[in-house]
């Protein structure tokens, strides 16, 4: 249940952020595909599992039936390097007994196998009582029923594969026309996920999520050196019309020429510079330094053995207190933004999609949460509902807290990257994601990019190579002094973000504007062999 106080908060944030965010580069408003309902046979099997769990003593149980269709196409130069098309179907059941979780999953979709899985999950709940300091308590959520589908005009999996291959090969063809460009790779990752969730509290929802992830990279070789350039093509929760709107064949020559230019670029002189990050680079820095550090499971140690903990901890010392960045910094979490990868109607616990501020005018305000986490911080935030961050990558994986879209909201002045360059005396500008690495509490990071430019006296002076920037999250964000306005907003994203043991993959988008950071350490990463 959502309290009135929560409702007002959430609504206010959503309205403010939607007004602030500029339009997506692509208009996907015309929708023609209706949301499919659940397969009645699957509902029957899921109910069998739920009933078995309840009879065996579960105080709560949920069942997810998932049908996942994934297609990947990879091409190199004039040929296909791989085509895969796979379907995965099955059921996973999670049970709560005496405040302990159990989970079991099976690909055998029969009533008998569903019962066996339910009992296996119950056994796991019971076994967990042996090591059991904290009792799981779920924050209330309203019972929901319904269907939803990612708004698309054309389901990418229904597009003939010959059209997809033709598009990719034409892209490579165009790239290979460029001098010194010897290799070109392009690809598509396509996903359709049909997921039904039933809970012992009466929720019954079926959602169809559609995601597309195009990619392009190219390598130029000359005089014993080779340089690669990867275009930053955002994966999105959109249909085939988005892929078409990218005009990959029409842009490939321009993209490939950047790899050629890198061969003669000046190797950067290591030192301290003002750093301007385009949204095509900054989205990943947001993901790593803000997205992951504001996950509540990390802050309370549940990820300590794998992804790590967080410097944004303990909750009682940071909520409303930690100065994450300057007052121009507003960071929103949401699962509602159109075209974003994390968009759903309900999360994997049946909690309605939410939109809220993680950082408000530079100050840390709230975490990402699931139902079992709410009680940990409710007194500090005043929020009594889950923010709806529960997600499992497949029917065969247990749901847990995963990152929603996390985005840096635009500044009030509608300026763009050119205005920021004009205002910068000595700097480095970076486009697209390169190598990335960050420590297990999200302090020290080192990121690279794909295209680097030297800035002198308000102008781009030339291209650089061998560049990486290294900083510390709070120092870095507090050094941000200029950000773009709503027309410079761009939505990037990661198709595969890993977390958890066993590791699960999540898709998440990050919107942002270009930004400047003062006095950042720039490294030269070239080494002599």
């Amino acid at each position, binding site marked *: 249940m959502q309290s009135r106080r929560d409702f007002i908060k959430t609504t206010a944030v959503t309205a403010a952020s939607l007004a602030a965010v500029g339009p997506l580069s692509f208009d996907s408003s015309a929708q023609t595909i209706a949301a499919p309902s659940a397969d009645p046979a699957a509902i029957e099997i899921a109910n069998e599992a739920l009933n078995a769990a309840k009879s065996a003593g579960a105080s709560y149980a949920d069942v997810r039936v998932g049908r996942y269709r994934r297609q990947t196409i990879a091409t190199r130069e004039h*040929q296909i390097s791989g*085509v895969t098309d796979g379907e995965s179907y099955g059921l996973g059941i999670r049970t709560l007994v005496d405040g302990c979780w159990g*989970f079991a999953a099976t690909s055998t979709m029969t009533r008998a196998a569903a019962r066996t899985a339910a009992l296996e999950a119950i056994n796991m709940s019971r076994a967990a009582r042996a090591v059991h300091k904290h009792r799981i308590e779920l924050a209330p959520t309203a019972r929901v029923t319904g269907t939803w589908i990612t708004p698309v005009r054309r389901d990418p999996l229904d597009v003939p594969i*010959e059209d997809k291959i033709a598009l990719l090969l034409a892209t490579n063809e165009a790239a290979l026309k460029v001098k010194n460009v010897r290799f070109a790779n392009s690809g598509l990752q396509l996903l359709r996920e049909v997921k039904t969730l039933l809970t012992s509290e009466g929720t019954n929802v079926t959602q169809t999520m559609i995601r597309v992830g195009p990619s392009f990279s190219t390598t130029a070789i000359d005089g014993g050196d080779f340089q690669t350039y990867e275009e930053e093509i955002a994966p999105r929760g959109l249909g085939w019309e988005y892929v078409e709107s990218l005009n990959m064949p029409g842009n490939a020559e321009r993209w490939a020429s950047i790899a050629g230019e890198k061969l003669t670029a000046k190797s950067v002189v290591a030192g301290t510079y003002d750093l301007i990050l385009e949204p095509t680079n900054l989205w990943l820095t947001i993901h790593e330094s803000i997205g992951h550090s504001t996950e509540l499971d990390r802050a309370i140690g549940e990820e300590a053995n794998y992804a790590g903990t967080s410097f944004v901890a303990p909750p009682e010392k940071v909520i409303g207190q930690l100065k994450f960045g300057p007052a121009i910094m507003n960071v929103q979490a949401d699962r509602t933004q159109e075209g974003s990868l994390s968009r759903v109607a309900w999360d994997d616990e049946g909690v309605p999609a939410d939109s809220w501020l993680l950082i408000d005018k530079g100050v840390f305000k709230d975490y990402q949460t699931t139902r079992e986490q709410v009680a940990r911080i409710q007194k500090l935030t005043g929020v009594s509902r889950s923010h709806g961050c529960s997600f499992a990558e497949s029917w065969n994986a247990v749901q847990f807290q995963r990152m929603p879209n996390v985005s840096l909201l635009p500044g009030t002045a509608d300026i763009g990257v050119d205005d920021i360059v004009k205002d910068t005396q000595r700097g480095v500008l970076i486009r697209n994601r390169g190598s990335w690495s960050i*420590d297990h509490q999200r302090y020290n990071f*080192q990121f690279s990019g794909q295209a680097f430019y030297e800035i002198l006296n308000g102008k781009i002076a030339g291209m650089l190579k061998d560049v990486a920037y290294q900083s510390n999250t709070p120092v870095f964000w507090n050094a941000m002094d200029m950000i773009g306005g709503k027309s410079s907003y761009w939505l990037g994203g990661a198709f595969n973000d890993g977390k958890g043991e066993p590791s699960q993959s999540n898709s998440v988008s990050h919107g942002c504007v270009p930004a400047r950071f003062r006095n950042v350490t720039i490294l030269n990463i070239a080494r002599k*062999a």
Partner: protein
Amino acid sequence: MASQARPGTDAGTPLLTREQAKAIADRVLMLSTAEQTRVNIVSEWSGNTRFADASITTSGGITDTTLTVTVTIGKRRASSSTNVLDDASLKRTIDLAMRLARLSPEDPEIMPELGPQKYSDVNAYVRATADLDPETRAAAIQRAVSASSAAGKPAGSIFSAGFLEASARAIAVATSSGLFAYHRTTSSEFSMTARTPDGTGSGWASSGARDWTAIDPSAIGRIAAQKAVASRNPQAIEPGMYTAVLEPQAVTDLVPLLAGALNARNADEGRSPFSKTGGGNRIGEKVADERVTLYSDPNDPKLLAEPFDNTGLPIARTVWIEKGVLRNLAYTRFWAQKQGKQPTGSPAAGGLALVGGTKSTEELIAGCARGVLVTHFFYIRALDPRTVLQTGLTRDGAFLIENGKITRALKNFRWNESPLLMLNRLEEIGRPELTAAGRVMPALRIRDFNFTSLSDAV
């Protein structure tokens, strides 16, 4: 639990037997009308338990069987997969692969599917691992948590978090040219992080093996906590080039990254650290210290890797680097034929072992005048394929060594270093040990390891 047939056991197992896998593969081969067909089957069970702060947070038991059909029509090839194994679904999967293949352009590099092959018999299936039930896992975690609490007492109430997973897999490959291969394997892994209540110390220990009984949960709990206690109140020292003693787990994080660089085609095409200036590759050249030997071998009793790859190609022992000299690169069947070589399969296929020394980690520390001891690494990412340069961080215990002794805890470092270049700055190589299923790695003492900045992370 006793009343139920458990996954992985011979009675009522959901893992496909050789006969069951062959029957399914034969059915697909019969249903397919393609010129050539290959069937890959992966039948698996896994059981896992995760814990934090003395509570099991999640646990799971998963069974699944995935079948992939790869069809060839002329020079066109495509795959499709499913985990629904009734005839209708198999037919649909074959039809989809056929459709995809017909639509695909010709692949000038296509190789025909393999006929019958001879495989070595690798016994990598251990019943104790396949039978690891939730109660036994919970009991093992309890032992580790108790050992951690006891060893962590000097620091107060220690926080522990960890993960235990056991899995069993049966894989099968069949082709329309008469090849059939089947292999069963198990794998288990237990890792744990211990943190001190003041938030200044963190330790970690991990063990992995095909045989669950080779893992000692109490030892893992104890070592993680001892490291946590010892790593409290870390001091900052100036980043720079230091001698580094890398524990075997740290070496396991770093050295296998060389596998990706061992691709023969990339070397021959000028895209690799093993490319020769002016063309060709560096086979026969010295690429590392002469004490370094790196090999793959599915039959090695410590590696016990899969004896064939997903095309059914037998994986034999391959020595990549012998006494510092590059002996082999990884050849696909196409590239091997083009270059007149034997195909090897991928470099990681046959497990990976780095050998050449006999000393213990303690002896490597004792022989170090001044250096940094590293427990393990985190978030390693490639920076430059020309030198296999990587960046990453130290984690859960970095210590200063002075005159052969550990003298104090250090703040974590970010580093930029290449596993290849580093093997040319070898001071000492330790005794190889089993660090994870399919990995045998020693401790190493490396001169001038490039620590580039400090991290505040504990």
